[in-house]
């Protein structure tokens, strides 16, 4: 059972190599950006100023906050890439095997349709985030090493300024929780994508996104209400993991501000309201929706006759 599941997930990684190649590319880009000083996407420069130039003058707390900020500033690129990749992966996962007609081969093996679909769901919910997380950690280490070398060249004590000040494990733990809860929060979308992937005869991408645009429009025209639009929007931007912070806040460099980090007692983990997250009815409603769509995907794979 578990053996089969591991083999199936390994199979997903063989087929969808973007799952690890994409975050590796992002990691390389982020590291290169730092090396060349071509800081285009995020406010690394600002963070670097504080971390490097101002570091020796700052107090322990501010320095730790600055370093945490510098580390978390790399996350949005990974997270955006991860989510785009998850969308493409989920939409492709049950569509490609029908397009290349390998589905008959896969179904000739003693593996049930549920086992197969579950392996694809687990890949989207767990494997993609974990791989992305490992690369975020590696990127942090690379960045801090580069900064340390820079400091050392300029005659500063990198060990003291950077490594002793950086709340590495706290940041990593918070990132891990965030990166694992994000797909859970967005799981109704993932379930929907799997279902479309199993169902679509062609253009799964279009079929997946058209209803998200058309349904809110129809609702507005016919009923004059915006329930769908609100549900989609709320789900997309407001993840109730960090008390008052919204996803865009966390994704952008203005929201999680050095001050908030500093005031939080230097702990990102302390910002996380895990109990509150679990107590959100929307999370569980999302699980139900995801479960229904996943079951529907299994049903379609099992009962559809391609001829």
């Amino acid at each position, binding site marked *: 059972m578990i053996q089969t599941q591991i*083999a199936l997930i390994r199979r997903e990684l063989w087929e969808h190599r973007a799952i690890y190649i994409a975050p590796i590319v992002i990691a390389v880009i982020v590291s290169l950006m730092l090396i060349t000083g071509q800081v285009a996407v995020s406010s690394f420069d600002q963070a670097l100023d504080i971390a490097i130039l101002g570091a020796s003058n700052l107090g322990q707390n501010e320095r730790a906050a600055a370093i945490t900020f510098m580390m978390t500033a790399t996350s949005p690129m990974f997270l955006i890439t991860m989510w785009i990749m998850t969308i493409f992966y989920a939409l492709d996962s049950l569509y490609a095997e029908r397009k290349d007609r390998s589905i008959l*081969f896969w*179904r000739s*093996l003693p593996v049930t349709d549920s086992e197969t679909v579950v392996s694809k769901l687990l890949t989207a919910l767990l494997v993609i985030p974990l791989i992305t997380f490992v690369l975020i950690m590696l990127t942090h280490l690379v960045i801090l090493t580069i900064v340390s070398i820079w400091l050392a060249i300029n005659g500063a004590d990198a060990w003291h300024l950077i490594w002793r000040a950086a709340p590495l494990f706290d940041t990593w733990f918070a990132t891990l929780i965030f990166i694992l809860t994000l797909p859970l929060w967005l799981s109704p979308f993932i379930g929907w994508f799997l279902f479309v992937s199993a169902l679509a005869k062609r253009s799964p991408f279009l079929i997946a996104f058209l209803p998200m645009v058309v349904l809110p429009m129809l609702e507005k025209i016919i009923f004059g209400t915006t329930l769908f639009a609100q549900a989609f929007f709320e789900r997309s931007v407001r993840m109730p993991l960090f008390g008052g912070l919204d996803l865009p806040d966390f994704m952008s460099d203005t929201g999680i501000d050095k001050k908030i980090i500093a005031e939080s007692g230097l702990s990102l983990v302390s910002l996380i309201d895990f109990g509150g997250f679990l107590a959100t009815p929307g999370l569980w409603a999302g699980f139900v929706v995801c479960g229904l769509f996943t079951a529907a995907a299994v049903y379609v794979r099992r009962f559809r006759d391609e001829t």
Partner: protein
Amino acid sequence: MTSLVSARNVSKKFGDFYAVDHVSFNIEQGRIAGLIGPNGAGKTTLLKAMLGLTDCQGSLSVLGLDPFKQRKELMQNICFIADVSVLPRWIRVSQLLSFIETVHPKFSRSRAEELLAQTRISASAKVRELSKGMVTQLHLSIITAVDAKLLVLDEPTLGLDIIFRKEFYANLLNDYFEEGRTILVTTHQVEEIENLLTDVMFINDGKLVLDATMESLPEQYAELMASGEDAERARALKPIYERDVFGKKAFTFEGVAREKLQELGEVRTPGIADLFVAKIKGAAA
């Protein structure tokens, strides 16, 4: 003998159209059965029902299992090649072997590697880098390495050149077919498998029009070559089919004593292909 496959009144309807129309048959263990029919006759639908890929009406039992409800158990004891192109193109040969090794309790990786060593297929190659013939070789090597009771082949040699086709069936007989193993094969290229088969079934318009052992064919069917007056007299014996061969007439008879026919001309047992045409076209006429 035990029936590996037992079908009673099996039907599959698409709307008002019967793709398979109340079909009944048995396949015994250790046989090589050919399922032969024109395109759209219901061959593939019937095979799919037997493999648990589609549901059907009637009672169908394969290895004592309900194929649709117990597909996973069934697939541990059945192998099938549905078409030459079904192996995923992105996978490496070694990955394919590892995957099957994990999910299939009856797969012997060493046996597969042994068989592949006799070919030019390297373990690091991706399926997309292999020629069509090599992909089929790979697929056959894999299923030969599974200790399965029943092998189902649906047009296994479609699109292959003649050398690969000959080799395919030679390998099938030498490597796969052992005591207790059973094969069910469908193909257009009837002549190629004629000598392999122990049983033959014809299907047309969803109905089984012939279900016989190869040994029983000479008793039931005869082909007579006749011309002129003899041809007229032959026609009176109600052949199921008639065709022109080099100025003579060839008649196919069902259930007519050979002694009677021998007076009219040369009599032999019809080949499967001719018999097939006679059965299908004769029924239509």
